[in-house]
């Protein structure tokens, strides 16, 4: 068993590059998904039914599709419509649009339980539209939804493992290569698990620092 981990250690360069790719994929898609979610949220809350209806269809649609299937569709399905992306672009796009829907839904949930008066004060003080959302509505949403958003980022890290099926050299892909090359499945996969866990700890640390900021304002 120790010997197996020795083999994994000898392949550390491969494993670390997989880890780095997972971290990059996750960080990039978390940030962009959150930004898109922030744009999608006011659409979900829009008074115009066409806008809120379209946003609702997208969000509910995404939440009902298994991520693996979405990744298949983007990478294998779209080329038959003449839209072709490389595996990295496909994987990132799938992670982003899938999680943007969740982010938007999380923020919407936080919005509906916010007190109405501070937002109304924003309107009374001359804020409107984008500036009202960005300066008055959104900041308390991000603070109060912090833990749930963090949870979703952990979900992104785990979803990124599916991208091994479109041959993105991320952490699961690296662990899988090592185990098939040397036949050390337990050591290879357990090592990957700990690396995923480390990534999640970093996210947890981020969430708790947002939590401290929120606590000072509560």
């Amino acid at each position: 068993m120790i010997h197996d981990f020795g083999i994994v250690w000898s392949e550390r360069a491969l494993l670390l590059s997989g880890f780095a790719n997972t971290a990059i994929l996750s960080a990039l898609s978390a940030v962009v998904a959150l930004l898109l979610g922030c744009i999608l949220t006011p659409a979900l809350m829009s008074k115009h039914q066409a806008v809120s209806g379209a946003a609702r269809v997208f969000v509910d649609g995404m939440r009902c599709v298994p991520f693996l299937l979405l990744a298949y569709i983007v990478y294998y399905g779209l080329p038959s419509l003449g839209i072709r992306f490389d595996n990295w672009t496909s994987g990132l796009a799938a992670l982003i649009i899938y999680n943007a829907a969740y982010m938007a839904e999380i923020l919407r949930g936080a919005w509906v339980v916010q007190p109405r008066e501070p937002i109304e004060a924003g309107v009374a003080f001359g804020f409107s539209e984008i500036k009202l959302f960005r300066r008055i509505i959104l900041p308390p949403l991000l603070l109060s939804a912090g833990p749930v958003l963090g949870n979703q980022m952990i979900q992104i890290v785990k979803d990124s493992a599916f991208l091994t099926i479109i041959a993105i050299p991320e952490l699961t892909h690296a662990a899988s290569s090592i185990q098939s090359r040397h036949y050390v499945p337990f050591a290879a996969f357990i090592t990957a698990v700990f690396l995923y866990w480390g990534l999640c700890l970093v996210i947890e640390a981020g969430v708790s620092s947002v939590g401290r900021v929120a606590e000072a304002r509560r």
Partner: protein
Amino acid sequence: MAQLVLDVAGISKRYGDVEVLRDVSFQVGKGETVCVLGPSGSGKSTLLRCINWLERPDAGQIYLNGAQVGITGGGLVMGDRDLSRIRTRIGMVFQHFALWPHLTVLQNLMEAPVQVQKRDKAEVRDEALALLAKVGLSEKRDSFPAKLSGGQKQRVGIARALAMRPDLLLFDEPTSALDPELVGEVLVVMRDLARDGMTMVIVTHEMGFAREAATRVLFLDHGRAVETGSPERFFSNPETERARQFLQRYAGDAAGGRR
């Protein structure tokens, strides 16, 4: 009357079958403090919220310094941009304070002047600090609203409205959400503003304050402006039976030790 600041002409508002305001008209001159009184559900808050178009009136006109609120010169309903330009000239103080929870006290005061009015940040900051001193909260400038008492929150609410340099200040039951022992500190600030000649419309249940600080009283009942006049006359010798009953009930409450 001094120079006219606010002219409310025949405002009506209904929610479904309920007529909340019926043809309400009144005027406010520069430096006046008009207290809007009336039983719960008489439409006082709705009237106030129609003035800056937080609620859109169904009929009637509102003029601020001669310019119509909510309707363009062409007779169309104003877009957000025009409305927000007018709203920056009307300060508002809310029943539940409505401070922005993610900003410190000082940031609450500076937010709209800097972001909406686009005024110079350093100048706004100096003015905001002076306003905090005026309401006695200089030492709280870096606190978040959640850490303040209700009375302190409302004084910040007033300072925040003043930071906009408004032509008119609206108060929507500013002391109703406060514990009785905190009401006084807020009324002191409002009384000072009245004395300084700030133009104000105040919806309140504080009869003592209205009697003493108002230049004029407007009594609403079932959405109608039933009576208007000087506080001396209204409180000592109301013209209508409805006003008389209303005042008697308040006197009864006061005698019973309730607010």
